């Protein structure tokens, strides 16, 4: 049975991982775009990105666009794997609860 991962179970980090995993491998998303997509503040997003980066689930890259620094985030192979396991674990919980409900009936 797949285990729930505490690091990405936090709601903002879970949505962040879901968004980053939806992008092709090798591509990365802009910090400002992610902030607007998730509806969080700069500080909040920055803290969650750092946490995920420390865990090795995402990679942060700084690029200069029109001489301004921009941060891009992408999911690593480990991050994609952990996210898939998290989804599987959540689905198992739901299936397990549905099975237990049927047995009771």
């Amino acid at each position, binding site marked *: 049975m797949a*285990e*729930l*991962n*505490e690091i990405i*179970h936090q*709601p903002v980090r*879970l*949505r*962040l991982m*879901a*968004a*980053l*995993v*939806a*992008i*092709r491998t*090798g*591509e*990365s*998303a*802009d910090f400002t*775009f992610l902030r607007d*997509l*998730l509806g969080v503040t700069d500080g909040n997003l920055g803290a969650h990105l750092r946490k995920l980066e420390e865990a090795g689930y995402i990679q942060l*890259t700084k*690029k200069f*666009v029109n001489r301004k620094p921009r941060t*891009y985030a992408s999911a690593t192979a480990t991050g994609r794997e952990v996210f898939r396991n998290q*989804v599987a674990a*959540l*689905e198992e*919980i*739901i299936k397990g*609860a*549905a099975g237990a409900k049927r047995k009771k009936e």
Partner: protein
Amino acid sequence: MNISHNAAESALASIHKAENQMNRALSTSGGAYQMIIWGAVMMVGYTLNQFADRLPVALVAGPWIVMSTFGNILSVIVSVQRARKFHNPYGARLGLLYVVFILFGVVGAFFVHPSDPREINMLVYLLVMLWMASMGLWVDLRLLWISLTFTALMLFGFLVLPDYFFLWLAIVGGGALIGSGLLLVRGRA
């Protein structure tokens, strides 16, 4: 770590919501829109080419010039908008590769001297499809299959329906490009 059934459902719902939001953002800022733009240009342009012998030259060449310029401007806008949101390590190289293919096409045409308008258009089409295939190998395999399918369809039209080749390019070439673009958009949305 244990959570309730409701918490698991809520977590999955938030995952799907974030995935959908990202897919919608990707679909409105990707190459799919460029395919739709160029498909429309092909449809109108090659339909005019098919009836070129019955139309004044200005009525065939004029729309091509206007639409190609418009298509190029829209393509640049779409690319710039996408680059603001997403970074692709191959993005600049793919743009340069397009220019390189066209340059090689011009040099190749200098040696081969294609004189028939059908041959010239087939050569341009093959170069664009070669670029799309290369892009597919780099970033998205679906583009490789789309490119190979279009190339096979265009070769069929060129060899089997020579008298209607431009109409074939307009309807099958342009239509398939628009259809593929729409499929990519819907697949993401």
